[in-house]
């Protein structure tokens, strides 16, 4: 269902490559989608992929970290407003601040930054750790194996996210289901999930307007920008973004990390023996297993490093490709848990640097620390195979770990 390659794209710049349809991008038992896309570095640094979005659109693919930095910094040329969520509903409103360009972006970013700053995350840390410990102790008391995604990674990440926005844990499974349908479902399922999430955010905002609580949604409905309250559409744009961003990224990172440690006992032992190394190791695992593809839309024609980009073209900055750039990282396909000077782009470059990055990092580090200190030597359970997939957000499921 890919669309024809536009006339302005030179045929020699077209490559048969896609984060959705290339080998290893579909559900793959024991797959390694990050290694699979690293082969993009065998092609020229910029090429055109005829089918590189969920809805089959073509994109330019920027493979080098240094070029991705340039694209993500140049917000005057490369806009991030493409209503990726709203378009699933046939609507056109931005998720905020992600899909706003400067200067409007900065106004909302300044509003939200303090809520997720490094200092704020230090305050949240004890509650995060408590949650991790409770889940892992429950697992280890019950059995000597578990499905990491279902039993730990998702409940952990999603419950922290729910308490952040001010919702009780009891609806956790419902939210995880919506997130799955939205991010990985097809057609009708996806549209239905998008509608449900919008209605839910709108309801929550209305509730908090009527009865304020000490939570994120209350903050948003009471907040002012430029001396005025936020519009309903702005409140929705913020709520939906936080919902979508918080649901599955951290869980997926923990899943890929534990899968790596299960398969690499030496590294597992190293972190078990010297837990002080986990902070640095988590950065290397973020580099090696980053999960997000950023898309920008050209606002004007530009010849970029030899690529004739025209107004309206999509430009893909896939974190998992830049993070395997040999010009940026020595031996990019080797995972070195002691790697220094690790300037990876798991949380993007530029003004749209992931707002939740500090919280995400703490969750990942705490998740690994508590898992390693409470679960003995673990491995992928015999006769099981984790299933990985590529796409807009990479993922892993059916990760069954076992220990003695």
């Amino acid at each position, binding site marked *: 269902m890919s669309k024809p390659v536009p006339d302005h794209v030179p045929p020699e710049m077209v490559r048969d490559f896609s984060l959705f349809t290339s080998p290893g991008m579909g559900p793959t038992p024991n797959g390694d989608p990050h290694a699979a896309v690293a082969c993009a570095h065998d092609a020229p640094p910029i090429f055109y992929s005829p089918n590189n979005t969920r809805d089959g659109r073509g994109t330019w693919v920027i493979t080098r970290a240094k070029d991705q930095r340039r694209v993500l910094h140049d917000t005057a040329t490369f806009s991030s407003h493409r209503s990726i969520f709203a378009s699933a509903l046939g609507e056109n409103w931005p998720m905020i601040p992600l899909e706003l360009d400067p200067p409007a972006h900065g106004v909302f970013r300044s509003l939200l*930054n*303090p809520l997720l*700053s490094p200092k704020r995350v230090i305050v949240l840390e004890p509650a995060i750790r408590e949650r991790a410990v409770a889940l892992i102790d429950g697992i280890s008391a019950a059995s000597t194996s578990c499905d990491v995604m279902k039993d730990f990674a998702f409940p952990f990440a999603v419950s922290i996210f729910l308490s952040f926005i001010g919702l009780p844990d009891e609806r956790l499974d419902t939210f995880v289901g919506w997130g799955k349908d939205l991010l990985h479902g097809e057609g009708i399922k996806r549209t239905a999930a998008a509608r449900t999430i919008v209605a839910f955010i709108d309801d929550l905002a209305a509730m908090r307007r009527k009865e304020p609580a000490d939570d994120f949604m209350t903050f948003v409905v009471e907040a002012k920008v430029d001396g005025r309250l936020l519009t309903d559409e702005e409140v929705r744009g913020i709520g939906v973004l936080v919902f979508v961003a918080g649901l599955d990224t951290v869980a997926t990172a923990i899943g890929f990390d534990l899968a790596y440690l299960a398969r690499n006992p030496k590294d597992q032992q190293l972190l078990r023996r010297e837990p002080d190394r986990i902070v640095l190791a988590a950065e290397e695992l973020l580099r090696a297993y980053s999960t997000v593809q950023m898309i920008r839309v050209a606002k004007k024609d530009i010849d970029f490093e030899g690529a004739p980009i025209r107004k309206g073209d999509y430009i893909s900055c896939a974190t998992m490709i830049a993070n395997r750039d040999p010009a940026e990282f020595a031996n990019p396909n080797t995972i070195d848990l002691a790697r220094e000077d690790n300037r990876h782009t798991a949380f993007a*470059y530029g003004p749209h640097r992931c707002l939740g990055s500090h919280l995400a990092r703490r969750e990942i580090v705490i998740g690994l620390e508590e898992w390693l200190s409470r679960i003995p030597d673990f491995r992928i359970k015999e006769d099981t195979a984790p299933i990985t997939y590529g796409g807009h957000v990479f993922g892993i499921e059916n990760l069954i770990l076992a220990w003695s």
Partner: protein
Amino acid sequence: MRIIVHNDKCQGHARCWAQAPDVFKLDDDGYILRGDIEVAERDELLATRGARSCPERALEIDRAFDALLDRFLFNQACGGFNT
């Protein structure tokens, strides 16, 4: 050693702060404070790591200053300023 801070490039990754919180100070939003940083000798290793971990290249390590300072101290020790 001195660290030249390019505030316009800082995007709030806070990787410098994670490596050396006493050297790199952040504002309430999580972005680095304005102004270049003089680094005490005992903090040089961590400060260097912090600067090198910035994904945006907002922190520039300036050692030219060290050479100047060394020459100044040497001259002073030799009584160079009196001659």
